[in-house]
């Protein structure tokens, strides 16, 4: 019997210090200010006077090892082998030689990973798995992102906006991402209650957990064909899918009724206004792959309306709050429906409880 090699566990991630470029190590915590040299290109100047140039390139996030190696090669070629990824999944090359910026941009463009996303742009869309990997999805994520970013590309490559604009996609209400606090959020939704699979339910589900999972208490114990199962009070179901998360016997996919909702005006930063949740703009658009034209059109409408009307530094939600939601609906032409009026827990607090009115 060959002795088993001792398993290495619980070592945690490698220490980040190993991966910091020398210029960063030398000036760690000593940065003085930065400037945006051109879209996607930053310079950070240290107290010491040293400069660090960052070139940010687009990434589809779903990356082949080939592409990662390409990035590694470019890093070797232009910046001593140092690079990083951003919290929005772009890739950043960290240079010390200003003259290398343009050649690097050239190589990236040639390879199909264009540069941009800094300052007053639309950066990469934070997104989730969709049909590529998740069982829960009401739509695909990657396809939506690709379709939207193709249309919005000028806003990535050039600073054409009053401020940053952050878009996120989530393929179901679990919202794996900051969808609930994005300037624009594209959210996959179901519109039919789960179809209970009584045949397998008792064997694969913890019924008490299942019942407790429903935010609206729509799930009740029931005996079906002599077996313990559950029933869904359909009027109480708002298709959140949480029951499906805890029990495989509660699928709610339905091609004709699944689709997309669009949300606007959230933010995360504390700059000027406090962080905000995203609010409903369009309750439903159909899933129309591969290019989701209705979604792309709606998102572009929001972006162009915002670009035209907001003041410098004003995020989308700040602009809407200043001009008022009625104006938002009027300018975009989106319909205001019964679905826009909140009816969940804190609904009453969203009613217009004043005579502040615009005409």
């Amino acid at each position, binding site marked *: 019997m060959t002795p088993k090699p001792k398993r*290495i566990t*619980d*070592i*945690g*991630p*490698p220490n*980040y210090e*190993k*991966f*910091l470029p020398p210029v960063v190590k030398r000036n*760690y*915590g000593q*940065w*003085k*200010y930065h400037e945006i040299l051109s879209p996607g290109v930053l310079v950070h100047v240290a107290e010491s006077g040293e400069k660090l140039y*960052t070139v940010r390139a687009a990434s*589809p*996030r*779903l990356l082949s*090892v*080939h592409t990662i*190696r390409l*990035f*590694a090669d470019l*890093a070797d070629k232009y910046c001593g082998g*140092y690079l*990083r*990824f*951003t919290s929005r*999944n772009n890739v950043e090359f960290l240079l010390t030689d200003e003259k290398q910026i343009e050649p690097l941009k050239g190589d990236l463009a040639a390879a*199909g990973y264009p540069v941009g996303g800094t300052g007053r742009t639309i950066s990469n869309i934070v997104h989730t798995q969709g*049909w590529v*990997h*998740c069982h*829960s999805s009401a739509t695909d994520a990657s*396809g939506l*992102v*690709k*379709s939207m970013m*193709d249309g919005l*590309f000028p806003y990535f490559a050039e600073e054409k906006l009053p401020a940053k604009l952050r878009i996120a996609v989530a393929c179901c209400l*679990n*919202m794996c991402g900051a*969808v609930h606090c994005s300037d624009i959020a594209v959210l996959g939704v179901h519109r039919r209650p789960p179809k209970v699979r009584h045949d397998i339910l008792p064997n694969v589900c913890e019924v008490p*957990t299942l019942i*407790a999972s429903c*935010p609206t208490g729509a799930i009740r114990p029931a005996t079906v064909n002599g077996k313990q199962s559950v029933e869904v009070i359909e009027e109480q179901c708002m298709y959140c899918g*949480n029951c499906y998360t*805890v029990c*495989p016997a509660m699928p709610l*996919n339905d*091609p004709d009724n699944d689709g997309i909702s669009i949300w606007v005006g959230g933010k995360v930063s*504390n*700059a*000027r*206004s406090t*962080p905000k949740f995203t609010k409903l703009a369009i309750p439903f658009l159909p899933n129309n792959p*591969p*290019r989701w034209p209705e979604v792309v059109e709606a998102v572009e409408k929001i972006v162009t309306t915002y670009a035209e009307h907001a003041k410098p*530094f004003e995020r989308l939600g700040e602009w809407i709050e200043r001009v008022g939601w009625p104006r938002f609906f009027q300018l975009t032409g989106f319909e205001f429906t019964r679905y826009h009026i909140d009816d969940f827990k804190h609904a009453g607090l969203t009613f217009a409880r004043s005579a502040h009115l615009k005409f």
Partner: protein
Amino acid sequence: MAEQNGKSKTKLLDELEKGPWPSFVREIKKTSDVSPTCDDLLGQLELSYEERKGHWKHGGIVGVMGYGGGVIGRYSDVPEQFPKVAHFHTMRVNQPSGWFYTSDALRTLCGIWERHGSGLTNMHGSTGDIVFLGTKTDELEPTFAELTKAGFDLGGSGSCVRTPSACVGPARCEHACYDTLKLCNDLTHAYQDELHRPPFPYKFKFKCAGCPNDCVAAVARADLSIIGIWKDEIQQDDAAVAEYAAKGLDIQKNVCEQCPSKCMNWDGKKLTIENKDCVRCMHCINAMPKALRPGKERGAAILIGSKAPIVQGALLSSVLIPFVPEAELMETLKELVSRIWEFWDEYGKNRERVGELIQRVGMANFLDAIGLDPAPEMVTAPRDNPYIFFREEAAK
């Protein structure tokens, strides 16, 4: 594989190779040479595009020995059609703080994943992990062995500490009020056990942002949000202010009037900040990074409880400790976190995030339990309803 009888098998997906934005379809296609799973992934995805629905089964439960998480099990619901993705598990690999890499490190990761998986990744997942996208159960242990040998470890999944993440912070940002990378790294290492062996009622996320710009969305996506802040006065360089003005920045309109606390005054020449009224929003500093900088007394605010909508609606984190000096941060957090977990473990319901627990039991009771005094900084306003549960000891 893309063509069959001269006709593309991925007619719909092919559409997504067009256009200026880099294409995930091309990424998958070009990885065919690494692993044949890519072909079946494309096939199944094309089917999803045709039928407008996903084809993955409800999550599996697979993993590596000794760990309770780090792998998301996934099985196709059309395995006959696409046998190569019959199993298609992802592995979450804990990223280095701030997502910094050397080209060598990346190549090592690529090598491992080429040998054991689909060759597809997410750089990165929403929580921050390196996501290795798609492999079979058998490959999990070998991948894990190679990863740890290379100095990498798995990230979190399940009811555990999830992979903490941090903004780029002092490595490249002039605004960083504490060392986000070090804190993120230290937290991750301190809680290896809780990260790998789910001990809680539900998941627990840490995110470290160096300043109130919150470039890592901590306030929206972390059970514990550690956000850099300063206590003293904004550092001001009048000459640089004048320079911005000269270059065309409308300081009155675009700085002073957009200051949420209206605590700035610009007389056309000199900018004055009433620092005691400043809420540290960062706006003026963002607008003139060369001229204004966070103060010198730095540290972080600790906020608690944010999460996505499930079950009772999305939450934002809220202030728990307004200011901890940078030097005391790790120590304070360790003490605080242990008390929070103790209470949550004891009283949290299954699948109840700490934010929802606080809503259920009440902030005051929660503070009591973890031994913090109530402070007005924790609320936007005191209660407006008269439904006060007076305690017996308060009443006679």
